[in-house]
């Protein structure tokens, strides 16, 4: 257990080990550690930011959804109103058209009646003449008598 040169041998070995450690062991490990620490810190920061962004986006989406709902509501209301209006309009139009058609038919009927009357009248005149001719058996002046007959027909 006496002191001897071993002491210095140990010191030399120690110096060599320390310098090797200082040059080749410590720097790469500690730099990897620092880099990872930085990465983790960055990652955490990014996560924070993302959470904030998400919250913002959620708020925005909610607002937009609300707006869209309101708009849809408005549109539906408008459409309802418009359809009611259209129904009303078409009803009015149909009514008008019906009336028009009815009127036209009435007019036509009247016209037809008039024509029938006219025809009847003219045929009646001819019939009366031929009747008179047969009665008289003598042809009178057709001109003079037709004037008279026309007058008669008009009185019918």
């Amino acid at each position, binding site marked *: 257990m006496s002191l001897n040169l071993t002491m210095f041998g140990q010191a030399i070995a*120690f110096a060599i080990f320390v310098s090797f450690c200082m040059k080749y062991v410590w720097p790469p*490990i500690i730099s990897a550690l620092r*880099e990872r620490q930085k990465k983790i810190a960055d990652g955490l920061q990014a996560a924070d930011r993302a959470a904030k962004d998400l919250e913002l986006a959620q708020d925005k989406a909610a607002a937009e959804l609300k707006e869209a709902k309101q708009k849809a509501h408005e549109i539906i209301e408008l459409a309802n109103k418009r359809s009611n209006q259209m129904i009303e309009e078409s009803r009015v139009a149909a009514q008008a058209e019906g009336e028009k058609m009815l009127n036209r038919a009435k007019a036509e009927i009247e016209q037809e009646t008039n024509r029938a009357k006219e025809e009847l009248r003219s045929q009646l005149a001819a019939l009366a003449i031929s009747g008179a001719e047969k009665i008289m058996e003598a042809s009178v002046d057709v001109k003079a008598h037709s004037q008279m007959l026309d007058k008669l027909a008009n009185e019918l």
Partner: protein
Amino acid sequence: MAAEGETLTATSYIKHHLQNLTFGQLPAGYERADGTVLEQSMWTLAHSSKEAQEMGFWAFHVDTLCWSAGLGILFLWLFRKAAVSATSDVPGPLQNFVETIVEFVDNSVKESFHGKNDVIAPLSLTIFVWIFLMNLMDLVPVDWVPFLFSVLGVEYMKIVPTTDVNATFGLSLSVFFLIIFYSIKVKGVGGFVGELTLQPFGKKFIPFNFLLESVGLLAKPISLSLRLFGNLYAGELIFILIALLPFYAQWMLSVPWAIFHILVITLQAFIFMMLTIVYLSMAHEDH
């Protein structure tokens, strides 16, 4: 139980286990353990404790040097392997393990040392892991390795370098050198001398101040190395004593002691590291 030939007593067993494998110079005319007389001085391995002692200061403990160097290389190889493939992405198991230790050391340094110095952190890492590994050899059963080497013809083998006071002094002397180096570098020669002589009692008591402060300064490396050495030497000695018990009874004591020792070896490595950081941080501060 490694000793060959001679009758094995408890004393000789303990002595044998506490003897380092010493390489040194024996003078001419020296009568060796086996009775032969050297014709001229020669460098050789000691074959007995007495021979090792005769070699005096100019000798090496081969086992201490080899084991500590081997463990240091193991440490650097492992950490270098992790450093080469270190990425800031998901770390593998080795990198994870190494990073845990590195971060632990880095935090310890940051807590105690506030200056800017690129040496202290790697120095602390080396101290912590290297001393831990050297201490860890203490948990290898005391007879295994010496027995293996005795089969190979090597008589002495002490595998725990930190139970050799030379190893711990080698470390603490390096730290001591660094303390003085940084004191002078930061405060200048004048500042350092002033620190040693002008406090705590002012200019009138310079010799007294100097005595006080130099004792304080010298106590640092001595306490540093003797604390580590004492703890590990005592631990090793107790393992050796336990190994003297009958083999069926050993586990009752050796297992609890080994478990307790896991704490001790880690703690001692940590204390050595922390005190180094604190001493160097003191060296950087002006009073």
